[in-house]
């Protein structure tokens, strides 16, 4: 974990929280096969718009998680390196938060994740620009409008009722499946207990056939996420920027 004196940071206006955070994720790149099951599951769970081939080819795909592919060397001696699933890192000190002039992207103090307030967003896209991980997606058109996207007339029947459908002109991003977090917490509360580790997980982690994605409480040292993070070969992307990311990548393990 990063050891930053948190009394010293926060000058940029982000809400500063405890360094360890609450929810976290570990992605084992050695296990990832690049099958894109997480991308599909995320799109189903979070009602992510299908932008069509042309727009997707021009960098307008709206997936909250993407599989980045990298390779080394030049043809014909090309070597594929690891697949890198990239999603919102739920930064503890997120660069997207202070730049929004409308407070449309803020920190949830109870869940300690970075949340997007859709109905407050006016679409300046400053947050997307300032996100070092480039994981925010903007609604370029009304992809969920039947008049624009004919396919949605039937596809709308599989929308997840727990998640809002977004309209044009607003920014959106990974929420760590906050609807699942709330559901599990409500259930545990009604039964008078705490949420157990592994009781629920995010859509991407649930769909991963290789179990490369693990989600859970990072402030609980007993959880699987905390144990994997303690293994030692974990890296956090661009942590040199002081963003305190909540996603740890395991790469080059035995």
């Amino acid at each position, binding site marked *: 974990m990063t050891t930053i004196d948190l009394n010293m940071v926060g000058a*940029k*206006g982000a809400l500063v929280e405890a360094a360890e955070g609450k929810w976290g994720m570990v992605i084992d790149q050695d296990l990832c096969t690049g099958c894109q099951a997480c991308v599909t599951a995320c799109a189903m769970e979070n009602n992510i718009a299908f932008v069509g081939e042309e*727009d997707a080819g*021009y*960098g*307008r795909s709206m997936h909250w998680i*993407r599989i*980045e*592919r*990298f390779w080394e060397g030049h043809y014909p001696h090309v070597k594929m390196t690891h697949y*890198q699933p*990239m999603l919102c890192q739920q930064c503890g000190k997120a*660069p997207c938060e*202070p*730049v*929004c*002039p*409308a*407070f449309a992207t803020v920190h949830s103090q109870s869940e300690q994740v970075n949340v997007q307030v859709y109905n*407050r*967003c*006016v*679409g*300046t*896209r*400053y947050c*997307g*620009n*300032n996100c*070092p*991980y*480039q994981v*925010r*997606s*903007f*609604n*370029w*058109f*009304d992809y969920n409008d039947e008049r*624009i996207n004919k396919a949605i007339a039937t596809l709308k029947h599989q929308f997840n009722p727990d998640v809002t459908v977004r309209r*044009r*002109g*607003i*920014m959106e991003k990974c929420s760590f499946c906050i609807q699942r977090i709330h559901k599990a917490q409500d259930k545990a509360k009604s039964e008078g207990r705490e949420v157990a580790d592994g009781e629920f997980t995010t859509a991407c982690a649930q769909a991963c056939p290789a179990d490369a994605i693990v989600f859970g409480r990072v402030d609980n040292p007993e959880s699987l996420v905390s144990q994997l993070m303690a293994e030692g070969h974990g890296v956090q992307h*661009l942590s040199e*920027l002081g963003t305190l990311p909540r996603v740890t990548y395991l790469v080059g393990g035995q």
Partner: protein
Amino acid sequence: MSDKKHHNPEEHFREQHLMLDPMPRGQMNDMVMESMHTTSWKFWVVAAILAVISFIGLGVDWYRLIMEGQGLAGVMRPDYWGIFLVNTVFWIGISHAGTFISAILRVFKAEFRRPFTRAAELMTTFGLVQAGFSIFMHMGRVWLSYWLMPYPNQRQLWPNFHSPLSWDLLAITTYLLSSTMYLFLPLIPDMAMARDRSTGWRKTFYKVLALGFRGTEGEWAHLRTAMNIFAFAIIPVMFSVHTIVSWDFAMATRPGWSSTIFGPYFVIGALHSGMGAVVMVLAVVRGTMKHMKYFIRPEHFEGIARLMLIISMAWAYFFFNDYIVQWYGGDKWTKTLLHWHEAGPMGWMWFAMLIFNIAIPWSILWNKKWRSTPWLLFIVGLLINVGMWFERYIIVPISVTINRMPFTWRLYQPGIEVPMGIGTVAFFILLYMLASRLVPLIPVWEVQEGQMAHSLTKFGRETVMTVSELE
């Protein structure tokens, strides 16, 4: 013009300097009024074409953009910001010329400013109107833009004052309001002049705007005090507005943007394009409007061109400073970005920027004869503005192509921004043309004041121009 023609040095001075070529106040008033009223059919043809282009860009295309979404523009991941932001910075830059010329030159008592302060101030206000259009075009949900204003509401929601965009909104609004007031104050005596010389609806128009000005000693004293206060107060506003615009970029955590020199670099860039635009407007006004050859003379072009040369040199210094500090910083993403600027697919734009902003002004404006030639300065001003637009294009969409996630790198291809940007240019020219029919473009009282202060004095055999303090 040449010394051979005039053996009399006084006649030579008179022909060269407006301040030494006085005319009775009444005659100058009539000339300015006549220049406003003389409108040829060509004017209306050009105005109609510009109105159509503005309507397509700002009406039809903007309506489509609002109704269908920002996807009509070329923006995508990672280029969340595109030409709309380029145009915003560009128009705010143009607007700096008016304040610079009328406030700074007024404070420093630069006498050559007198006939064209009004022409430059009009550019400030109309340029800011286009900047406002451009920034609102950029917003995904422009119908909710009032949320950026700190207005009292039941849910106690406020804008985020940590965001540079909030500072930007406040700075631009302040600048628009103060520059409009500063445009209006010196206009009051000219409105009164026009009121006394017109009939019909024009009389009503000027009567309202003249605020009952009669030209008494007390009125002049108040007006002068107000103008003095504004001239001094607006200078820091002008410097702050473009510095704050630059902070939209400099405050972000992006390679190539996190540069501490961006504030002064943007201010100098704004003056660079603004002076180029002033010289273009003056060349057109002089060439097309009646009697303007008396008021706007080669000496004025020469004076502005000297400023252009100095500003071009200052711009070159700040550009080099920005480049060398970023390069020396050694950050690998910044190095990639700097390489992308000059050797990427848009490298031609980077070189064109340097040629238009540095090479061309330096190679033409050193020569007094060339820098006194209006049509040549028009071309130089045009190229500087193209070069400065390129500079903003390199800073916004070309630079955001490179980020710290190489998987997302992608080149920006503009879409509907292009006709909409052309629409703002057409609307700017159209506003200016219509204003030239309604607003006395020459501040007659200011010219006359200068003419009364200037005189020729003989020191031995030498005839020199002297200026006395009137106030």
